[in-house]
């Protein structure tokens, strides 16, 4: 089963600035105090599609306590690794189409997926969620060809975002167990040796539902913090351009400022 949770939000900032804030949101706790749980951020791929002009980016974030503590408590230490290290790798894929005025992002946890898989999808747009389809139709009727023009429409002062979280626990399912225990899975002997054996005795299904609902109940809090963080980055960008913001951060960190050649 999958539990989903969808919310809509409007930022009172133009779309290009919001996309920049998205890339900058984990840049520094000084820029976004709500990002102190993010231990690292790395880009592993970035390219512009020559046909569509869309920017495709893949990043890996290392976040502390991605797994809710209540979920960790439900699990034996053989699964959580003792519960001491609760940081989790998060894979983030994003596509920006600056000409059409939208950005789609998808983030998912890379480890602990056998216990709980969390997928966050976001759709940012210059038009409100219900108007998106009709505006896309209008564009195709007009026959706008890719790269024919840069953003020609008037710049909307607002950016609309729809966020959907999906929670799926497959704890005790055969396939997921296999993945979770891949390192200790040298023998092919079937049976209760697996987590499935441990958990099915007291209702794998019920535990899966509990894990999904505990995680889902934390969504509002997570969404609010993430929006507050985005807003702080956006405010900084409103008063200063990105280059000024970056130079100010370097100054505060006591580093020499890059030459802007």
């Amino acid at each position: 089963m999958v539990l989903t949770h969808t919310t809509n939000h409007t930022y009172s900032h133009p779309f290009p600035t919001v996309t920049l804030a998205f890339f900058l949101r984990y840049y520094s706790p000084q820029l976004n105090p709500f990002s102190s749980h993010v231990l690292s951020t790395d880009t592993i791929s970035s390219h512009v599609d020559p046909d569509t002009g869309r920017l495709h980016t893949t990043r890996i974030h290392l976040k502390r306590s991605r797994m809710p503590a209540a979920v960790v408590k439900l699990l034996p230490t053989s699964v959580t690794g003792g519960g001491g290290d609760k940081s989790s790798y998060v894979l983030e894929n994003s596509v920006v189409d600056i000409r059409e005025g939208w950005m789609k992002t998808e983030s998912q946890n890379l480890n602990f997926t056998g216990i709980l898989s969390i997928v966050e999808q976001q759709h940012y747009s210059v038009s409100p969620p219900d108007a998106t389809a009709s505006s896309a139709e209008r564009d195709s009727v007009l026959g706008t060809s890719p790269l024919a023009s840069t953003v020609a429409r008037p710049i909307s002062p607002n950016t609309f975002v729809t966020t959907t979280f999906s929670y799926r626990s497959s704890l005790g399912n055969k396939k997921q167990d296999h993945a979770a225990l891949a390192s200790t899975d040298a023998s092919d002997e079937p049976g209760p040796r697996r987590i499935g054996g441990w958990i099915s005795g007291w209702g794998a299904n019920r535990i899966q539902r509990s894990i999904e609902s505990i995680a889902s109940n934390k969504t509002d809090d997570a969404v609010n913090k993430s929006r507050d963080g985005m807003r702080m980055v956006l405010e900084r960008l409103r008063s200063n351009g990105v280059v000024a913001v970056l130079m100010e951060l370097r100054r505060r960190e006591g580093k020499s400022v890059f030459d802007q050649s």
Partner: protein
Amino acid sequence: MSASLAPECNGVKERYDTCFLKWYSEKYLRGTGKTDDNECTKLFEDYQKCLSVALKERGIDKLLKEAREDNKENDAEHMKRK
């Protein structure tokens, strides 16, 4: 300044990030950054050379491969249902 998961890559990562953010805000968002081959390409290559070693060491490359295979499977299931 956000760190790299591999501290030894922090320097090259910071140079790339700064370049990317500048390119993104000054070119891409203005509709002029349309190619892959830009002023940040060389910096990105240096960064990836450093990072790929760390991804392998920490087994993250395997996690990535698993995630991609899972996504493919899920997509295939969706297609079947239709």
